[in-house]
């Protein structure tokens, strides 16, 4: 009897194992689907034109890696200009967003005033507004301000459109922070500004890091505003830059297109390798509480 039970249990565990292997295979297939196109792109970026357009199968490895593809597009395709624009416009917009959002969240959670809930609601509704429904008047408005084809248009748009999500994520963190330190500081005669800059802001570093990386990725990848507001090569960022570049050269430059795409992707991948936990946390925090 005991033996039969034992056998039954064994049989069950065999089935569980088979089931587990099957589940793993499913998960790995999904992972391959997610990662293989990028591996393929990396291969593609190192191939010569004859390899890309020739007979060699696309899944083959590059025969003689053409690192020169990267050098060529960096120097001859304006990619260096676009890259630098992306970097500084992203950084300034993220800094402004974080500063303004921290101010607002501090005022809403720490200071006493009547309209704080209403103000918060006003910012939160912004989460639902599609960019396109503000685009035309925004274009007209920036035209009026004379900042069309000027990076300021991008900085203003990025900062404003990132505020709602940033405030939402900050808010969750501010609510969990103890208020005692700030209260003690008030008793000691500390000014509000000192409390904000020297006590509260340093305490929120973890969530600042999370929102910073989320905002950076958003700004780095943004396309519609650049495509609409910026027309001169001098101020284009990477997304629109590579789009135009590829449009121009799609027929005669094979591997170079792969290289431009890789150049736009690599900074994000590096950020991901270093900060993946923060990114995951930011995405989870940003949506679960919504």
């Amino acid at each position: 009897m005991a033996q039969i039970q034992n056998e039954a249990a064994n049989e069950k565990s065999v089935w569980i194992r088979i089931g587990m292997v099957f589940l793993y295979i499913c998960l790995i297939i999904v992972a391959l689907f997610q990662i293989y196109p990028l591996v393929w792109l990396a291969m593609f970026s190192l191939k010569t034109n004859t390899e890309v357009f020739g007979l060699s199968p696309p899944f083959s490895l590059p025969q003689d890696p053409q690192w020169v593809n990267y050098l060529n597009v960096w120097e001859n395709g304006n990619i260096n200009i676009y890259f630098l624009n992306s970097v500084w416009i992203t950084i300034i917009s993220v800094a402004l967003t974080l500063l303004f959002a921290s101010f607002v969240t501090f005022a809403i959670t720490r200071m006493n005033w009547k309209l704080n809930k209403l103000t918060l609601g006003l910012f939160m509704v912004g989460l639902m507004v599609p960019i396109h429904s503000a685009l035309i008047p925004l274009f007209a408005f920036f035209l009026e301000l004379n900042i069309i084809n000027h990076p300021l248009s991008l900085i203003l748009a990025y900062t404003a459109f990132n505020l709602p999500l940033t405030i939402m994520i900050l808010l969750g963190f501010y609510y969990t922070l103890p208020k005692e330190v700030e209260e003690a500081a008030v008793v000691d005669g500390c000014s509000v500004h000192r409390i904000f800059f020297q006590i509260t802001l340093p305490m929120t570093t973890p969530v600042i890091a999370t929102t910073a990386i989320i905002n950076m990725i958003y700004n780095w990848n943004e396309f519609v505003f650049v495509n609409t507001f910026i027309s001169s090569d001098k101020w284009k960022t990477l997304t629109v830059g590579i789009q135009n570049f590829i449009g121009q050269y799609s027929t005669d430059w094979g591997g170079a297109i792969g290289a431009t795409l890789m150049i736009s992707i690599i900074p994000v991948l590096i950020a991901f390798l270093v900060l993946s936990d923060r990114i995951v946390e930011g995405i989870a925090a940003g949506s679960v509480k919504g």
Partner: protein
Amino acid sequence: MNRVMSNKVVIALYVLPALILTLSVIYGPMVITGYYGLMEWNGIGEMTFIGLDNYKELIQDSNFWESAWHSFLLAIFSTLSLAGYLVVSLILAGKIKGSNILRKIYLIPMLLSSVAIAQLWVKIYDPNNGLLNSFLKAIGMEQPPVWLADTDLVLYAIFVAILWQYAGFYIIIYYAALKGVPEELIEAARIDGASPIQIAYKIKVPLISGVIKVTIVLAIVGSLKYFDLIYVMTGGGPNGASEVIASYMYKKAFDTFDFGYGSAIAFFLLIITLIVTWITRKLTTSKDELQY
């Protein structure tokens, strides 16, 4: 305490920069879009008031309704695909080794720009030397489809790229929610003899229904405003077969410089987005209450 923290000047100083920016860059333009929709305007010259003509034209514009239909289809597909993401997350959140790394691998495409993703998939779908057709030819298919140039297939082909882009996003959200389900509940069910599938279906899924609701809203609203990927991949073509509301609006405004008509479409998009958000929340709330 109260005096310092109730200082009106400081409050204004802290709130106004963000408030002014939000009002002038998001809400102001949003309202003005509806107003521009009443105008005939090429973006540079004089604006002429034409009343509801743009909105009347919109109702009769078959191209517009076709693009709205495509947006609607994408919203349906995206919502259905949530079930798949949920299954993957349920497997991941069970005690699986390596779930941390797998989860992060799934997320990578989400971090890339839509332009890069679009260009990558254009290469994958290339009829002659793309990844997909080379594979199909290698396994013996003689005339593989032309994907992005095929009016019947293009929307599905784009949807695969959308799946690729967003899978990780939803998996992360579901995973985080599932990790929040109390361990004791699952343990108790297991002792009562519930199978893993029963635990998943009867305990875990109902407990995260709030999050599922949020993702449904995100998927639908996200699909309605879908733009970058499609604009770069196909430009709405071939022959309008992959045109969506946002890309149609963009073309009208910034390619043919019909800013009035473009604004009417944009205003319509805004109203639809708000209504759909509201309806989805309403519909899914009643279900919530049944489950508890």
